[in-house]
């Protein structure tokens, strides 16, 4: 059984092209089922950065042609942007994808769930089931053993991570939004996903007293207005701090020009971050992710090698099974021939004879079995298997 991958990603195709071949759940399921016809296995993986089709088939060339045809039927222009990988390279690619190493942001966490979903929706058999399970295992291992996915990769997640550095859990913490730009919405969404609640979304029509009142209560202020000048002066915050009785306040200024008085950052109990601070943090954490990616690559390579060894051993498994069956047949035949002698033995003696002969067969076959599997991993497996069949006269029917 051969493994074939055909697909395109953000490395090869612009978004205009990728969106033409993007697949919804049902479409991915139907496409996989279509490609799996005729005893093949197929999985379609579609995310915003990639659409890939994995097929397991005896005839790799035909499977590849079919996969290309299916994707080209969605958008003919995609064909030049398609990559085609087979066997070891295809598996290695999937392992890197699951680990987030092929993502736009290295180590992003969503891809693991998307690979899992694709696996569930696919028409899998022994090969694709194995390769997807092992890829998911590699992805989890990379996340557990490296810090590749731990640091924030966007301004909004950096703001949330900084708030966590001050408050710990954000469960029950309240947010005051000054203005409702796209970035501040993302930041607020990020904080809410960690348990925080929005106390007030203030705009230019909101009464000043309401904002001041919320300043006494909230834990996080996110500002992102289009105002030409400062929206919140340090003096206003000083007044609020008197009423807050030492409770910390995190202020995130995402606006340009800035909404929050920089002097607020000097006040006790106030932690002020502007867009430059957050962007510098994101740049730094992304470079940290790239450093971690080096460690992740070695984990992925080791896991891919394990899969390759298993996959390659499939070439010699039938020959090994035939050899063992033949040996067992001979052993049983020879024992049957000696029945006149063995009949005089009691049960325990008979069991001992059975065990000794079985052990002899096992010991004789152990090394050839190991060597054949090693040869399979080194790509000589088929030659070895043929030699074994020839040397031991294993019949055609056993192939």
């Amino acid at each position, binding site marked *: 059984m051969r493994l074939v991958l055909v697909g395109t990603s953000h490395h090869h195709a612009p978004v205009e092209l990728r969106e033409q071949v993007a697949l919804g759940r049902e479409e991915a399921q139907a496409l996989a089922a279509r490609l799996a016809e005729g005893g093949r296995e197929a999985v379609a993986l579609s995310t915003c950065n990639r659409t890939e089709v994995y097929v397991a088939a005896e005839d790799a060339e035909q499977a590849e042609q079919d996969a290309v045809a299916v994707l080209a039927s969605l958008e003919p222009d995609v064909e030049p942007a398609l990559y085609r990988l087979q066997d070891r390279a295809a598996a290695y690619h999937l392992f890197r994808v699951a680990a987030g190493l092929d993502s736009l942001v290295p180590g992003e966490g969503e891809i693991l769930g998307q690979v899992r979903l694709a696996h569930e929706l696919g028409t899998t058999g022994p090969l694709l089931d194995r390769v997807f399970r092992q890829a998911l295992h590699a992805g989890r291992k990379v996340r557990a053993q490296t810090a590749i996915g731990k640091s924030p990769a966007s301004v909004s997640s950096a703001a949330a991570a*900084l708030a966590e*550095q*001050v408050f710990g859990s954000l469960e029950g913490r309240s947010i005051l939004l000054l203005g409702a730009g796209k970035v501040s919405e993302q930041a607020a969404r990020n904080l809410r996903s960690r348990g925080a609640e929005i106390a007030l979304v203030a705009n230019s029509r909101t009464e000043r007293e309401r904002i001041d009142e919320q300043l006494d209560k909230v834990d996080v202020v996110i500002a992102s207005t289009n105002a030409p000048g400062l929206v919140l002066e340090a003096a206003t915050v000083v007044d609020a701090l008197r009423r807050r009785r*030492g409770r*910390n306040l995190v202020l995130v200024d995402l606006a340009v020009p800035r909404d929050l008085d920089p002097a607020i950052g000097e006040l006790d109990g106030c932690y002020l971050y502007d867009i430059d601070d957050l962007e510098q943090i994101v*740049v730094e954490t992304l470079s940290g992710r790239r450093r971690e990616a080096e460690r992740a690559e070695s984990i992925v390579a080791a896991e891919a090698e394990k899969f390759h060894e298993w996959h390659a051993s499939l070439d010699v498994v039938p020959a090994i099974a035939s050899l063992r069956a033949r040996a067992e047949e001979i052993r049983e035949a020879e024992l049957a021939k000696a029945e006149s002698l063995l009949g005089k033995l009691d049960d325990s003696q008979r069991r001992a004879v059975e065990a000794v002969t079985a052990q002899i067969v096992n010991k004789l076959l152990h090394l050839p079995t190991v060597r054949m599997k090693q040869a399979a991993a080194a790509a000589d497996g088929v030659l070895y298997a043929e030699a074994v069949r020839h040397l031991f006269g294993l019949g055609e029917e056993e192939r």
Partner: protein
Amino acid sequence: MAELLFWPALLLYGEAAVGYFGDLRRPGRAGRAATWGVRLGWLAQTALLVAQATRDDGFPWGTWASSLSLFVWLVVSAYLIWGCRRPYRLLGLVVMPIAVALLVVARAGGGTGNGSTSRYSNLFLVVHVGLVLAAFAGFTLAAALSGLYVWQERRLRTRPATILRRQVPALATLDSLALRTVVWSVPLLTLGAAVGLVRLVADGDRLDALIAVTAVTWGVWCAYLGLRLLGGWSGRRAAYLALAGFALVVVVRLALPATHFA
């Protein structure tokens, strides 16, 4: 023979101290090695203390040097409660070098028990010395937490781009853990000191410098509790007060080598 256990304890604590510095530069393997150094070192020191108590059939930590050794064990024990968790590894950077230095000082100061017997009963020594040292160990941990608070708070203010590179407990967590540690430690010191005072009065002994500074220390930590629980103090101010209280603990433990039991 049992005294040989001192060396593995010292070496493992030393390895942990170095490991925590390595973890600061490159988080990961060095931090894990340091954590195991603390655990194994603590086991070695525990075995050493058990062997000493068995040998002397009582409480052999009445001398200045030997009480220092017990103090180190208590500090490391308190540290082990949180210190092995990844975000708290940085505490080891403060606690373990102190532990190593104090163990060396204890050794240089004569080590533990040389068979001399105290005129005080084992029960009194356990309650008085044990409780006071346990309280001081708690204050040391609270000071380490406060030190970490001051350091992290400063980083959050100066906003370096690397601020999220290292896992550090949140300010709120450090603040609350320091308070909880002091809440446990102050009653221990109060009880231990009260037992000592009762004995002092009963024996008609005079106050000495150690008692006086210990009383001031007790006052500072009581003030810390009062200001935090009743005065609404928290954060940086409270952390600085904890560090001031710890300075007095250092004076009591190191600058006043004489004990009432010498």
